């Protein structure tokens, strides 16, 4: 047994052999330093210290002195009483903490594509993230059905245990090729893609610089990472630089700690909550100046920005290699389920052992992966649809200009726009009620809109209430004009 007992300390992954070696050398050198110190100080000093040590030892061991706080021992009966007395709170709060209308959402019939069929009425879809109109695409559906007849629906296991199906490998390869990166990694749900990717790299003790406008999934990823987060004002590069400088000063004071503190910068390509674009060139400049790694969530900009839809980096002509990690949810442009991260093999591969949502969850249903492959095919074959989408976004932006009581926020080119109130009302609820009125009127006139839904108590920085208007390429110019007209009239009705 002796052999067994001493082996694990050297061999088990919890405490590697060479680690102990390095600790040992540290202690050894420390010990020598202390001995050296004692040869230099006067003798009475050593004597005094020795007496002090003996006295403390006596104090601790003597019976009259209680070093630790006295323990209160409860009798069994008292414990039972306490247990009897304790009244737990109910599992959920007595009064709802959410909007009552979210638990009875409108049910959509048929395919939620170009139009939404709600309450037996076809409404123009200005609400879902189906930017490229891939919902209901015949080619994609045919591919998915073919895949269904080959692989069935579920994969019945995580990627490690026979859940890796050839289409997953193919999709990862295609995504890497399309984004012009070395490697891509596939997740089975959009929300958990970035939420798992962040804690895979950023750990306790690390520092993350993050925009205040980021989506909820990023916020949750940051909480899970337990890193220190420094929030900068939305898209405010000066504020970011201020924080970076602040951190730099701190690091200079404690270079030892700084040498193991990783720094990350997390932004979104197009901010879902604001509809504007991150200033990438400036961010890249700051990246190299302050040596922070940059992660970009391109969920809303992939398949949207750039001449061929490759996202933010193409939009600004920045080599994607210089971005450390790009994370994309496939639930928007690609109109399927899941998400992926891409970047250099050095960075991405690490998620295969430490991305919680990758390792501990079943892989994406193969038919949905096939659908994504087909969607990529279409994106490659018809590169003009991205220009088309941007043009329509610009048209909508122009049409939504100068509404009564409302202001259209977001970049012209972004397919996501936020209509916010010009003047603030007393409470957020009042503001939302006004916006909901507009949404209801528009719905009656055949235009489906939605207010941007947030969990108000859980958002770190709650964006002001808004109607989130989205464009998809299938909407014709006339339809966009009609939609904008309906919104204009509704606004006049509410604010007039």
């Amino acid at each position, binding site marked *: 047994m002796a052999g067994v007992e001493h082996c694990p300390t050297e061999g088990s992954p919890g405490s590697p052999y060479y680690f102990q070696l390095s600790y040992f050398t540290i202690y050894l050198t420390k010990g020598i330093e202390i001995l050296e110190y004692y040869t230099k100080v006067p003798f009475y000093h050593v004597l005094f210290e020795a007496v002090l040590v003996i006295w403390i030892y006596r104090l601790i061991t003597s019976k009259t002195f209680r070093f630790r706080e006295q323990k209160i021992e409860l009798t069994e009966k008292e414990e039972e009483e306490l247990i009897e007395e304790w009244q737990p709170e109910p599992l959920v709060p007595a009064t709802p903490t959410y909007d009552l209308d979210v638990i009875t959402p409108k049910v959509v019939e048929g395919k939620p594509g170009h139009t939404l069929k709600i309450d037996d009425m076809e409404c123009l879809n200005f609400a879902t993230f189906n930017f490229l109109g891939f*919902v209901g695409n015949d080619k994609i*559906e045919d591919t998915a059905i073919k895949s269904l007849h080959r692989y069935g629906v*579920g994969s*019945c296991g995580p990627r490690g245990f026979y859940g890796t199906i050839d289409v997953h490998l193919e999709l990862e390869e295609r995504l890497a090729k399309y984004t012009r990166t070395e490697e891509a990694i596939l997740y089975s749900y959009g929300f958990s893609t970035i939420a798992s990717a962040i804690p895979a790299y950023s750990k306790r003790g690390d520092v993350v610089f993050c925009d205040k406008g980021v989506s909820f999934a990023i916020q949750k990823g940051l909480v899970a990472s337990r890193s220190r987060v420094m929030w900068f004002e939305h898209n405010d590069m000066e504020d970011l630089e201020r924080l970076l400088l602040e951190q730099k000063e701190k690091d200079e004071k404690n270079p030892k700690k700084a040498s193991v503190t990783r720094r990350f910068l997390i932004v979104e390509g197009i901010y879902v909550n604001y509809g504007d674009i991150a200033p990438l060139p400036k961010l890249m400049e700051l990246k190299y100046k302050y040596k922070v790694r940059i992660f970009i969530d391109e969920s809303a900009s992939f398949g949207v920005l750039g001449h061929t839809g490759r996202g933010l980096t193409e939009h600004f002509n920045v080599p994607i290699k210089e971005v450390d990690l790009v994370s994309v949810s496939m639930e928007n442009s690609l109109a399927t389920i899941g998400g992926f991260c891409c970047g250099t093999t050095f960075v991405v*591969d690490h998620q295969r052992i430490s991305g919680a949502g990758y390792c501990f969850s079943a892989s994406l249903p193969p038919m949905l992966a096939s659908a994504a492959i087909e969607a990529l095919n279409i994106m490659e074959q018809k590169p003009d649809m991205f220009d088309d989408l941007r043009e329509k976004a610009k048209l909508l932006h122009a049409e939504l200009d100068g509404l009564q009581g409302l202001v259209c926020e977001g970049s012209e080119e972004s397919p996501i726009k936020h209509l916010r109130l010009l003047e603030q009302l007393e409470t957020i609820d009042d503001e939302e009620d006004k916006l909901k009125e507009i949404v209801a009127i528009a719905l009656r006139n055949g235009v489906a809109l939605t207010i941007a839904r947030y969990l108000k108590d859980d958002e770190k920085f709650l964006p002001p209430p808004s109607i989130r208007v989205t464009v998809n390429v299938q909407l014709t110019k006339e339809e966009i004009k009609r939609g904008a007209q309906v919104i204009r009239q509704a606004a006049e009705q509410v604010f007039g």
Partner: protein
Amino acid sequence: MTPSKDKSKMPVRSRLTSRRSQKSRKNGFSSEKNQLSALQEEKLKEFRESFVEEFQDAPLYAAVMSYLFYFYMAFFACIKDLMIRLGVRKSKRPKEYKNEGFVPLYPEFEDFYFRHIYIPYSWAFNKPISSTAGPIIQLMEREVVDGGWQHRLTGVKTRMINTGSYNYLGFAENVGPCVEAAEEAVKKHGLACCSSRHEFGSLALHNELETLVARFVGKPAAMVFGMGFSTNSTNIPTLVGKKDLIISDALNHSSLVTGARLSGATIRVFKHNDMKSLESVLRESVVKGNPRRHRPWGKILIIVEGVYSMEGSVLRLPEVVALKKKYKALLYLDEAHSIGAVGPNGRGVTDYFGVDPADVDIMMGTFTKSFGAAGGYIAATQVNINTLIEYSWEIIDHIRGSSHSAAYASSMSPPVAVQVISSMKIIMGEDGTDEGKRRLKALDENNREDILKTRFLSAIIYFRYFRRRVKEMGYVVFGHNASPIIPLVIFAPGNTA
């Protein structure tokens, strides 16, 4: 064997209703229920005696060998590192792009493990297949290039028996009624909604599935989500908060741990499936309260799994329920691996032990395993009653309103939802055939003759038979007899291949 045996002949439906009529559906806080009746005590005792679970110790030889193995691996890895540092050997690892002078991305130890333990053995995992994850799979052979940094497909495909997928009831299939229904769903609803449940992501399908799941697990209401992992990680934070305590099994799944961490609640851990440990943690927590705030805990949530996927152990549910009632705690039960797979009617551990589902506050499960689909559900007691103040609010409504997934994540894909609906109906026997019964019957060893005739079932289904045979072959196995998971413990990682 188990106390539920005699009752298991009764269909679960009638059992549920008979129980329900006896007592009002409360959350388990009323004082008269805190004390167990003599009959219940006796039953519990009987249960304790009959519950056998094995965690065999490793033979000394195997233990020594596996430690030696790690020792050698670390030893040679250090030498390799040294040689790379001296420039004798070249590292094959891919490089980071242009980040000179940055703080290294990976901590030293993690990096060491990744380079020297994960990479050389990674080819034993992540093996790609090119078929359904059914009973027979087509494995795609790979070649190792660059000492494990790359794998190349050779193009050779081998047919193998699959004992690795969680395809308990064999619903991972590419023909049959479920597949036809899924195809219909694609034609009718497309593949995704591109919107969250709070906005325009709700289809009638989702509502239908939710009612069905609620009926299946024996709860009044349920909500479904697109991913099992997120079901845990995004919903636990809506149920507990800073003032509360989570008591978690030491071996809980990563999704439960993530959810607990995100919730901000204090987390205490008890020894895996050890009721003494659970009781002492519970007792101490209730008696001492929150040590930081010097106040009693708001509420205490016990989080456990029905069947543990890595150990193959089955939860001691009746004992947990008794403790939960005694200490007025709440119970969150993750049935990812037990729903559909254990119990005479395939309804999970409550069905197996004959426990009233009303005694479990939150029932969670995933569709990934037995149903051959993807996603997860949460089902809960509808009315949440406190003994002091009588008010009612639906737990599921609360989850619907404040779940992170419901507000921000895309809703479940229509064909996947339909796969769950049709497979669940088959298990419940509502499709008009006895297909479900046949599959469930195969779960019982007594029907082995039958099993051998059913060609489509996954090999893992014959789990009791499999467990016995594997034990006869001298492997060390873990877990409970009723569990469909049979962990074979392999001591030297070098043998994995």
